């Protein structure tokens, strides 16, 4: 294990560690464009030049391996002047169209220029013109003039998505990034090139011109697109209403580094699957009075649920009420349901999984066929049996009241059974055919609007944090369950934190404090 000195600080690193990584370990961030920890080394941008004693020339820190007794400076005069010169080169053909560039505010050309720029331009020549702002796939726009040819995007398509759509064509100042003619950047992971492009050359079609990045706030979350549980950041309108976003609150999703699960990446389905958070939401409780569903206050809606449940219970006992929880619910909500429906009310017809659900696309990288974030949580918390048996009993009239969380069970065979159910309570976030045919609809909160944990398919319990207030009158599901319990004469905690602590013996903050997810082997067991 070599021990080297970087800017006067000693650091011992594993053999094979590069200088740029060694510096990172002691909190020194060497400017870079082409280097990305998830991609092969390119050594193209020359931004990470450092001075190493006994080496006559500056060395690129991304490629140079740390050696014993190396003495490295990342701030010497030679290094600083090299950075300034490299930036001058990189910017010589850059259009400097920051005012109309989406990357502004999170652009490494801007960032490094603030520290190392030359400020007084010496460039009198004409800039090379290239193709500007054209779509190269369903999600990505390329601006060749802004590109600094770091080739991160090309290496991503070679090494990570293995789809090989992009290349560097031509030579010298006329070099461009482009698609191979007959191709389109439409692989299932295409959005990642937007994140790794250090400049404004690759921008997101969905996000372009919707919001300046400095108005965004960001919260740590977990993708709900499948059972992988990729770590994400929800970027949402923070300090200002985005006036072009049509009232949308969540503006984009970015992957959040987790070495054990998704590394730096997420799939496009997860990245662009946030629409449901702000569209077609159930915003108030609803009750069917005559034939139509009409908005209601929480109290009467919950009271009606409680009355019907009590009546069914006194008539048929524990068989009279059926519950279908969902692998879309958090562990805390599943625990609350278990406590109320299984432990307290001793209901016999409680199920969780929808046997009719269409599996999603799966591959050997991130995407799992199970489109639910918490199927493993459902299993770990002891739910068994699927919705079919419960629906059948509801159709036969054995179950008087059926409480459905999240699922859409209104199509095909399920729909035919559901039609015959006597009284349906729907607890969910978005309008669907099941909600439309329920007798009482209770609006729940999406994962963006509450705290909680999901257990991914490997058994990692991962926390997602609240970014937004529940839309309209909707409420956090564990609060809904707690209030429903109160009306039925039981007392249940309403906050996810309390439920989690009672479950795992640590607080949610302690769980997420580790920065990544809990390893299934070392995790506190349920």
């Amino acid at each position, binding site marked *: 294990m070599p021990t080297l000195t970087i800017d006067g600080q000693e650091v011992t690193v594993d053999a094979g560690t590069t200088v740029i990584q060694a510096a990172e370990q002691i909190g020194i961030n060497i400017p870079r464009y082409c280097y990305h920890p998830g991609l092969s080394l390119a050594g193209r941008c020359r931004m990470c030049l450092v001075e190493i004693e006994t080496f006559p020339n500056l060395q690129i820190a991304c490629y140079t391996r740390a050696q014993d007794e190396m003495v490295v400076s990342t701030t010497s005069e030679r290094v600083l002047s090299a950075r300034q010169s490299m930036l001058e080169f990189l910017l010589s053909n850059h259009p400097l169209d920051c005012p109309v560039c989406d990357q502004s505010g999170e652009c490494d050309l801007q960032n490094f220029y603030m520290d190392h720029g030359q400020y007084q331009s010496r460039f009198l020549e004409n800039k090379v013109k290239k193709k500007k702002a054209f779509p190269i796939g369903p999600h990505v726009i390329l601006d060749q003039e802004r590109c600094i040819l770091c080739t991160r995007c090309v290496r991503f398509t070679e090494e990570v998505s293995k789809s*090989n759509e992009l290349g560097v*064509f*031509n030579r010298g100042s006329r070099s461009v990034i482009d698609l191979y003619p007959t191709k389109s950047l439409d692989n299932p992971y295409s959005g990642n090139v937007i994140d790794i492009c250090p400049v404004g050359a690759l921008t997101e079609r969905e996000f372009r011109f919707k919001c300046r990045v400095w108005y965004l706030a960001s919260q740590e979350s977990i993708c709900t697109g499948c059972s992988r549980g990729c770590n994400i950041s929800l970027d949402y309108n923070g300090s200002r209403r985005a006036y072009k976003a049509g009232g949308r609150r969540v503006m984009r999703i970015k992957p959040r580094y987790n070495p054990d699960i998704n590394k730096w990446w997420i799939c496009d389905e997860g990245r662009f699957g946030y629409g449901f958070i702000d569209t077609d939401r159930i915003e108030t409780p609803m009750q069917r009075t005559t034939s139509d569903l009409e908005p209601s206050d929480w109290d009467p809606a919950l009271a009606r649920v409680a009355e019907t449940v009590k009546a069914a219970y006194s008539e048929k006992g524990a068989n009279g009420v059926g519950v279908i929880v969902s692998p879309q619910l958090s562990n805390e909500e599943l625990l609350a349901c278990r406590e109320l429906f299984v432990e307290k009310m001793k209901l016999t017809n409680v199920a969780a999984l929808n046997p009719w659900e269409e599996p999603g696309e799966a591959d050997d990288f991130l995407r799992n066929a199970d489109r639910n974030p918490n199927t493993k949580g459902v299993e770990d918390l002891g739910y068994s049996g699927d919705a079919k048996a419960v629906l059948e009993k509801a159709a036969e009239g054995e179950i008087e009241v059926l409480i459905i969380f999240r699922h859409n069970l209104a199509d095909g065979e399920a729909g035919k059974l559901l039609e015959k159910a006597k009284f349906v309570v729907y607890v969910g976030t978005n309008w669907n055919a099941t909600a439309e045919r329920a007798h009482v609809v209770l609006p729940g909160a999406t994962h963006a609007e509450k705290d909680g944990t999901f257990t991914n398919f490997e058994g990692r319990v991962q926390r997602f944090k609240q970014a937004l207030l529940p839309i309209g009158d909707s409420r956090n599901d564990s609060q809904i369950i707690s209030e429903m319990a109160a009306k039925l004469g039981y007392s249940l905690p309403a906050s996810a934190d309390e439920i989690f602590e009672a479950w795992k013996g640590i607080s949610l903050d302690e769980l997420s404090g580790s920065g990544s997810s809990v390893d299934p082997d070392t995790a506190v067991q349920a």
Partner: protein
Amino acid sequence: MSASFEFTPENKKRFEEILRRYPTKRAAMLPSLHLTQEQEGYISPEAEQYIADLLEVPVVDVREVVSFYTMFTRNPLGKHHIRVCESLSCWVRGSDEVKETLEKELGVESGGITEDGEYSWEVIPDCLGACELAPMLQLDGYFEGNLTREKVVELLKKQAASKTSGK
């Protein structure tokens, strides 16, 4: 010039020999492309795909190489191909005049091909490596230097004459 591309039986043998000289297939990219261009005169998208399949690399990698080197061309060329150096030395010593003369004499712009298919010519922005001959051009690979308008006209005449006198 067919839509599909395949090495001739003889070139297939040469390709196998080329492969043997390199530790990996990918490393045989340049000589394989030279062979392709020698056979067909240019490198078509179909030929790119053919080489990519042979070398087991993504086709985009082949295009990267073809577009990087000015010695490869992606368009069909005339029987005789002229490449005019436009790098610094040649430009200073009058490559503009060479360009103008060719355009006038051949009646096509750089990148074009004469109607009879005899000539094509192009400007090469990167140095062709013969600054001592500036301004210079390459005719079918041979250097012609210290050019003036007159010399270019003469060169074309000589070439045409050698044609009619028969090979």
